[in-house]
């Protein structure tokens, strides 16, 4: 296969994944949330149990008028939804699905790259909030900035712990080095990483920047139609990416219980991602939103010390081995 065709195929696959995975997760959320609340959820779109609800939603979003407020900073306002999607798309590039180079782009500093790109998320939110020229949007944006900068720290520290344990920054390398007993050794890091990841994608119970009951919709308040849909898509793509990263870093990626990792590795990865995504949805349904001060308190007084303690533990065990 010529190099350019190889590249096109890989990029196409990434694009398909980043657009299909959020739809699958979104539809699952519709159904899981409904049943956890004793409802049925969408039942009409598509022939079977409303499976096409999000497709119908997309058709609706496309038809809506694309409104830009008069006071808005037009180019920034218009490009923000695209930027919000960008980090997740780039991160998917380096997430290994299976062993033997089953990854869109092999990268030796994969983890470093992922953490760096994830920082882009806050830029999109700040762009959207400031360009909207709306007080609710601005407050949402400031909350998001405070939250994202705060949670970046435990996020990175927890990831650093596993990188230290594996002795590599390559995501594939981390999966190679992973052993089942790491589940216990790295458990605090897993919890910290998962919670900080939820906060990074501004997912309930960390959705203070959007907080519909206080800020209407925070930085989303002026967006309509396709641009709004893009933000929603980014949120669900974020769930996919956080689940995938948790799987790769802490749950052993393609390593399954019966061997056969070379053949079924991709399946194990997908199953693990699905399970973690389910937990993300479950947490949203079970818990209410954290207040702003609780949110910061959890980060600085809970997650950061826990991540630092984990680092010490990792270093200690690593030296002892």
């Amino acid at each position: 296969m010529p190099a350019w065709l190889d590249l096109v195929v890989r990029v196409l696959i990434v694009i398909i994944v980043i657009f299909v995975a959020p739809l699958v997760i979104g539809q699952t959320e519709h159904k899981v949330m409904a049943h956890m609340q004793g409802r049925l959820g969408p039942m009409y779109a598509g022939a079977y149990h409303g499976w096409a609800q999000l497709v119908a939603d997309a058709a609706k979003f496309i038809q809506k008028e694309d409104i830009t407020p008069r006071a808005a900073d037009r180019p920034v306002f218009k490009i923000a939804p695209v930027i919000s999607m960008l980090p997740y798309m780039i991160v998917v590039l380096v997430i290994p699905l299976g062993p033997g180079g089953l990854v869109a782009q092999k990268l030796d500093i994969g983890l470093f790259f992922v953490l760096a790109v994830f920082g882009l998320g806050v830029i999109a939110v700040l762009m959207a909030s400031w360009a909207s020229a709306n007080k609710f949007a601005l407050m949402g944006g400031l909350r998001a900035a405070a939250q994202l900068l705060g949670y970046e720290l435990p996020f990175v520290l927890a990831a650093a712990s596993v990188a230290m344990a594996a002795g590599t920054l390559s995501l594939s390398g981390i999966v190679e080095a992973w052993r089942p007993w790491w589940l216990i050794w790295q458990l605090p890091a897993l919890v910290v990483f998962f919670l900080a990841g939820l906060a990074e994608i501004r997912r309930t119970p960390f959705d203070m920047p959007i907080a519909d009951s206080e800020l209407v919709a925070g930085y989303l308040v002026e967006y309509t139609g396709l641009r709004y849909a893009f933000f929603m898509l980014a949120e669900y793509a974020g769930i996919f990416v956080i689940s995938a990263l948790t799987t790769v870093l802490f749950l052993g990626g393609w390593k399954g219980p019966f061997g056969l990792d070379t053949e079924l590795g991709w399946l194990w990865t997908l199953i693990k991602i699905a399970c973690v995504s389910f937990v993300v949805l479950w947490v949203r349904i079970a818990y209410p939103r954290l207040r702003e001060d609780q949110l910061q308190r959890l980060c600085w007084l809970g997650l950061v010390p826990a991540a630092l303690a984990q680092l010490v533990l990792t270093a200690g065990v690593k030296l002892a081995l």
Partner: protein
Amino acid sequence: MKGIGLAKGLAVTFKTMTRRSTTQQYPDVDPELPPRSRGVIAHIEENCTVCLLCARECPDWAITIESHKEEVIVPGAARARQRNVLDEFNIDFALCMYCGICVEVCPFGALHWSPEFEYAEYDLRDLVHSRDRLREWVMTVPPPPAHDRNGAGAKEEVVAEKALAAAAASAPSQVDACPNDGSGRI
């Protein structure tokens, strides 16, 4: 223990997910309404004596009745009897507040609740149901629900049983109560 509520929250939501949802798929599947549901009021003209009690008791003035008197000549009687004949019986369901006082007050069992509720109209005036419409609803009136096994029996049945027992005691005398009159209200 602190934090146990977090686990409980997860457990409750997960348990709910594994149970069957109670949602009724209404337009596709008809709801199972209890027999005493207050859907619409049916009017049995044959039982109606145009006493106007329902129209007077109605707090919303939703019932309008028109009638006239007719003479019935009974052969051998000293003079002709008079009888009310119903001309119009309208219930305006736009005014009705479903209190059921008319049904309760009717001494002859002419008004009954039916659980049917799908009679929305595009025009407010079409919510006035006239005689023939009210007669159609009669077919949808369900039989009265069974009584509580441990509770007192229906008044009609109790009265009839008492009368039968009394008749059995004084053997040859006639029975006054009619045991078949189950639908009439006392």
